[in-house]
């Protein structure tokens, strides 16, 4: 596959990869090809899926119940811990080596648009499979299918506390005086799809439709004893009970114009500008509706808009994108030990990401991580970026890398004359690399 140009890689990927010469100009087709091209280096970082995890989760749950998960853990618990440690590395290492940066960015974007975050031990083994199995297969498919996969995923069921929601008139509801939990119903309408144009009644009725959903080792289903009998009137449409009706609701909501607009806006704001051009958002929304919620045509509209190739970089890299971009520049995966500037036993990226304001898989709310620059520029976060630049400067600058060449490789013509002068003016090579990595130029995309 052809290497992307600098602006393609910076705006739509994670920046240039050490050792790979960038392509010329700007080519939307070259970016589109990344959506389906093979990416062996990235795929090496895949971790086991849900099917392999279920028995391990059961072993861990049993150990916990017997209170031996720390003192005398079973083989399953140990294996699960091993996988969870790999999961944490994958978030940074996979994009750090990826050839198809655009696809990796999209995977992160959708996992943020439809967020599940680790809250407690039960969610820890479920969040990475959510990204791999509910998000990734659908980033070149239809949003309606992604919404079904994410709504039904056990991580989502747990994260938005759907697991125990009981229809008030269901068998269980009547017997045990239990009831609804409308958390998932609300966030599905507010955050995953429409964002506006629905009422509290729609939320409550949707909660009734969703009551009884369950997904565990036995697979996804609606539990008869918890499902609310009778018709539900949601957004003017009538639904009965059961899994097929839930999927029909998802299709209907995915095809709403509000969902089209909110989805287009989210994509354009992520890649193009905090306040994206209105004409771009409108054209993207139209492509979405014209293609039965398929996402690839929407990406194409965005990539061929003039704003996609502009040399001014209006967006700020999130801490995750920032760390990955600097790893790529240094040809590192983030799992190295013994690097100068870091502790002897490794880079401790889990702690680092906390300091930078983006702890791994722990978005602060169902809204996910912020998508606008100001949110990532609190003084403590700026300070943490500088600390990272200092340590990375030492790690890759003390091995003889010339900071001027590195600046040229990282930014090419996009590097301002002021940045070039500053990088060249540093007393030591490592400080020159730090100047580059801590510059606003390097944080922008």
């Amino acid at each position, binding site marked *: 596959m052809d290497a992307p140009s600098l602006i393609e890689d910076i705006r739509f990927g994670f920046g240039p990869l050490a050792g790979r010469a960038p392509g010329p100009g700007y080519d939307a087709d070259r970016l589109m090809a990344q959506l389906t091209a093979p990416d062996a280096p990235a795929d090496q970082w895949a971790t086991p899926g849900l099917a392999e995890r279920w028995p391990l989760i059961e072993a861990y749950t049993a150990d916990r119940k017997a209170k031996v998960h720390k003192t005398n853990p079973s083989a399953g618990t140990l294996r699960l811990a091993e996988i969870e440690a790999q999961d944490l590395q994958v978030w940074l290492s996979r994009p750090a080596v990826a050839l198809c940066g655009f696809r990796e960015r999209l995977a992160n974007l959708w996992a943020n648009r439809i967020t599940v975050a680790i809250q407690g031990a039960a969610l820890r083994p479920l969040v990475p499979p959510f990204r791999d199995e509910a998000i990734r297969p659908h980033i070149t498919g239809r949003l309606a299918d992604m919404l079904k996969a994410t709504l039904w995923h056990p991580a989502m069921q747990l994260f938005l506390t759907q697991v125990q929601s009981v229809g008030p008139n269901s068998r269980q509801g009547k017997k045990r005086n*239990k009831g609804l939990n409308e958390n998932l119903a609300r966030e599905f309408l507010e955050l995953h799809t429409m964002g506006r144009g629905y009422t*509290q009644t729609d939320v409550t009725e949707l909660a009734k439709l969703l009551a009884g959903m369950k997904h565990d080792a036995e697979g996804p289903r609606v539990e008869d004893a918890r499902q609310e009998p009778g018709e539900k009137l949601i957004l003017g449409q009538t639904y009965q009970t059961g899994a097929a009706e839930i999927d029909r609701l998802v299709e209907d909501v995915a095809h709403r114009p509000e969902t089209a607009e909110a989805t287009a806006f989210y994509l354009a704001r992520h890649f193009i500008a905090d306040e994206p051009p209105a004409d771009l958002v409108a054209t993207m929304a139209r492509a979405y509706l014209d293609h039965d919620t398929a996402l690839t045509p929407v990406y194409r509209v965005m990539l061929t808009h003039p704003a996609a190739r502009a040399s001014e970089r209006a967006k700020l890299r999130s801490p995750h994108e920032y760390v990955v971009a600097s790893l790529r520049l240094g040809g590192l995966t983030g799992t190295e030990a013994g690097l100068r500037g870091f502790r002897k036993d490794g880079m401790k990226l889990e702690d680092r990401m906390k300091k930078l304001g983006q702890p791994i898989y722990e978005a602060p709310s169902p809204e996910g991580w912020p998508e606008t620059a100001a949110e990532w520029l*609190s003084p403590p976060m*700026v300070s943490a970026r*500088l600390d990272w630049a200092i340590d990375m400067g030492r790690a890759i600058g003390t091995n003889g890398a010339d900071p001027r060449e590195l600046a040229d490789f990282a930014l090419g013509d996009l590097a301002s004359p*002021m940045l070039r002068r500053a990088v060249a003016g*540093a007393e030591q090579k490592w400080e020159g690399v730090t100047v580059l990595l*801590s510059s606003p130029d390097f944080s922008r995309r």
Partner: protein
Amino acid sequence: MDLLLSRRAFLIGCSAAASPLVTPVTFAQAKGENRLVVIVLRGAMDGLDVVRPTGDLGFAALRPTLAAGQGPALNDFFTLHPAAEPLMPLWRAGELGFAHATATPYRQGRSHFVGQDALENGTDALDGTPTQAHDGWLNRALGLIPGAHAETGVSVGQQRLLLLEGATPTDHWFPVDESPLSPQGLQLIAALNEADPLFAAPFAQAQRLADTADGMTGGVPRGKGQYRQLGTYVAQRLLGPSRIASFSFGGWDMHKDQARAMAGQLGGLSDAIVALKEGLGAAWGTTLVLGITEFGRTARENGTGGTDHGTGGLAILAGGALRGGQVFGKWPGLGESALFESRDLMPTTDVRSYPAWALQALFGVSGADLETRVFPGLDLDRDPGLVL
């Protein structure tokens, strides 16, 4: 800014501002010792669980499991959640109070994110749309306080806080690591950051964080003692040049297992308030602490031992400046017809009134300014005598 001089410059500025004898502005201000702490309780705190209306006949039926556990009685109508017991000495000393059945004007949607923006922006729009400038009400208020400077208002924490964002310069504080850069390397970096409109201000403030790092105890608050540490940090800021501080306290969204979650949250919040009092020492006497949240939660417990997003909620008040020992507000009742949309506690007081009365009493912001510029559309009504 000359970075080599910044530390010295800060120290001079700091000592001058702290001494009423050498700064005429501070000296001239009769109220220069008054302090305000605003805690943004994110996630929608369940007011009916924190301050339980056990005297209302409808309460027990609405909360079959959540009403369990006998907390300390506040008066013959309200009972405090058992996990907030550490705050009872403050209540008895008249340094703790609550405002019940209160909410922002936001009524359409029950969205955390719209609700929090509305809470911090101070808008009176029913749909939560922020005011034109999309700034924070505390920032606008700071611009109206005579003698206020860039360090008068400070947000403490890792994230930015909309409440203090806006045209008035404010400070931001959080502990950071020491830097091993050479002075020249730092100058190069500073020059690049200062030339970028997005980075200039936060970078300058980040440098000041580094300058003030020494002499501070501890590091980034984390783990069990983190709220105590946070309270201590805020107190230290307020003993310096700052008079108004704000921080976020998240984790109140409890759709299930609320009994367990609430105990942890209230323990942490109690820690933070007690640490503020201890850290402020004598200055606690002229301090008001106000904890506000985006909305309340459903009057009825939901089907999973939790509560869903609601409307009327609770504000927490503390401090030596407070006329405490009372629950402010008008109780609407919990009968089906008394509830908002038959599901939520009916708000009877605009939550913006409480900070408005506090800003008037503590910092002399005028009623007219409060009702138009700080909180557009607010009807200030009669001050319930919040501040001593």
